[in-house]
């Protein structure tokens, strides 16, 4: 039976809670309402309102309270309502959640999951469509995972809950209602493993979250045009799977990175840096990025101009110096 990503997440929470008494779910509106995206739908009713409960409206408090519970035997899974509303919890995440284990020389682990619906494409008004993964990825001590498929949503969330360390699970809002035929429980590859979503020999496309379907769409078109893209779903940004990425680029010799967040100092920059470090001699062209612009996330009527789409991916691929003639765009920036 086809289920949505939101349902897979819901089942993952339920299964984790059934398996382990110490798993508790809380946040804003996750109780009777079931969360604004219904990811916790029915959980308070079915598993008890002490296992899944609403909190006061204060994200720093939610994350700090969760950290306290995690220090004392629980495995809290907290929901942030929308990406931008994780910002008030920033200090707790960066100064405490990510550091408690290290600070205490391993004595105090923080088995805490922070679920953050992220990204745009759903017509959300201001503050409801941020892609904030780069902030977490740059913070040592946090793991950051992003499912792009229904089975991964289930499996990565289960693994996040079982993980002894804090995990930020970024859930692509746009894909909450994407469907797949999948029998749960399902386990996909563990953290640190990128997945080849579509094999190809000509270009490696690195993507995650909502950018994965975009990359796949581009691959479909490219294939019709005679170019085979190898689409890698990075899945877990921390830990990062250097090996699969390098193997792919080593084979294809070309690479494009796609994500929705602003490009400047985004996660894509790190991927580019890693790829060119590891595959320098295999590369026939610079690694290009297709990302959101370096602007605040736009309002609904303008978001389609901001979001990466298959056409932009294809355009980037066209620029990968196929006849080994440098693309004039690069040359304009370089002195004669």
């Amino acid at each position, binding site marked *: 039976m086809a289920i949505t990503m939101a349902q897979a997440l819901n089942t993952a929470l339920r299964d984790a809670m059934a398996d382990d008494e110490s798993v508790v779910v809380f946040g804003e509106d996750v109780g*009777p309402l079931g969360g604004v995206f219904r990811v916790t739908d029915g959980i308070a009713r079915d598993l008890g309102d002490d296992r899944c409960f609403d909190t*006061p409206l204060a994200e720093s408090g939610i994350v700090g309270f969760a950290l306290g519970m995690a220090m004392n035997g629980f495995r809290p899974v907290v929901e942030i309502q929308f990406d931008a509303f994780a910002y008030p919890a920033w200090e707790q995440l960066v100064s405490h959640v990510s550091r408690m284990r290290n600070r205490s020389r391993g004595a105090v682990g923080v088995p805490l999951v922070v679920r953050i619906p992220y990204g745009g494409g759903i017509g959300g008004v201001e503050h409801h469509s941020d892609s904030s993964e780069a902030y977490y990825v740059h913070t040592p001590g946090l793991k950051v995972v992003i499912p792009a498929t229904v089975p991964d949503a289930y499996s990565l969330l289960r693994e996040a809950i079982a993980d002894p360390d804090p995990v930020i699970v970024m859930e692509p809002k746009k894909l909450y209602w994407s469907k797949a035929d999948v029998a749960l429980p399902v386990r996909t590859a563990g953290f640190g493993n990128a997945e080849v979503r579509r094999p190809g020999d000509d270009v490696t496309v690195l993507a995650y979250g909502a950018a994965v379907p975009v990359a796949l769409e581009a691959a479909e078109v490219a294939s019709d045009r005679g170019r085979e893209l190898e689409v890698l779903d990075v899945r877990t940004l921390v830990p990062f799977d250097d090996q699969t990425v390098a193997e792919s680029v080593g084979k294809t010799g070309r690479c494009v990175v796609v994500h929705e967040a602003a490009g400047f100092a985004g996660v894509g920059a790190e991927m580019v840096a890693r790829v060119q470090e590891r595959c320098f001699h295999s590369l026939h062209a610079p690694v290009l990025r297709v990302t959101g612009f370096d602007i605040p996330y736009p309002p609904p009527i303008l978001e389609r101009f901001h979001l990466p789409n298959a056409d932009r991916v294809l355009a980037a691929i066209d620029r990968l110096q196929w006849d080994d003639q440098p693309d004039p765009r690069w040359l304009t920036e370089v002195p004669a």
Partner: protein
Amino acid sequence: MTTSAELPAAEVVGSAAARLLPADTPIRFLDHDGRLVPDAGHGRYAMPRTELLTEAYRRMVLGRRFDAQATALTKQGRLAVYPSSRGQEACQIGGVLALRDTDWMFPTYRESMALVARGIDPVQALTLLRGDWHCGYDPHLTHTAPQCTPLGTHLPHAAGLAYAARRRGEDTVALAFVGDGGTSEGDFHEGLNFAAVFRAPVVFLVQNNRYAISVPLVKQTAAPSLAHKGIGYGVPSEQVDGNDTVAVLAVLCAAVERARNGHGPFLVEAHTYRIEPHTNADDASRYRDAAEVAAWQRRDPVARLESFLLATGALTDEDVGAAREHAEAYASQLRDRLLHDPEVDTGQLFEHVFAEPTPQLREQRRWLEEELRGES
């Protein structure tokens, strides 16, 4: 050198508590049927001028109609989302009428009604919720900050802006709206504390509509009332029946006056109720009974004020009819204006990030323009 190291004397502390705490029951002038209650205003607040009340009435009728229209337009897909403030008209309009035009208002996403009551063009007021841009009106021209979505975060802004005005010798007051849920955020705390320490002329108006989306007040706080938060900052506070326009205006006008005269910030908790779901996207049946909503509908602020003003003769049936007609015309004009799709101007994406776009933004703009040229 400061010598603040001594403890305050007992009398000072004791009298401060008396001065700072709200009344034990919400200030009220009218009962649910719009009749004057015996202890109106607890004997501490003066009845507002009649013209203020009739003006409030007219704007409430307009506001409610506007709100209904916006809800309808949302159902028709004309707005991206709409958080109704139906049932909160006394607060929405009370907040506006307590201010002069040169005073600043700091609204949240729920205050669309207050925006139009302030005279902001309704299409501009709905820009955010239409998804056209993040704010459609000019904050400086309207003395109204952009509607704030991240809860509580605008309270420090209000404190800073009001302090800035006071430093220049202006007698501007800022009024900031915040919800019951918003009082739990750290910025509520910091905003009130800054306002108090800097004696900024800010009136904080908590619209306690009993819910933060689905979360009821009892899960939000264990305080005797939200107004009781004021004393922790040395901010005097009051609680008021938020569906009693007379009481809301009486208390807010006193608070604004006080702030204007240099006596610093004030915290008002208005007890009211969100009649509609949180937004059109919400399903309120998941977390509250229809009976509860019905009970609050019987306390309707518009009907209540109307009864009172009709009874006192401040308002005639004709006035009521005229107010409603005006509201109808306003609403139908709004509907017509929103039937057009907004204009799409992609240049705006890059234009306002900085006063001058960086070379990188210029480049990105060029890319988009090229792409669009290619498309067309």
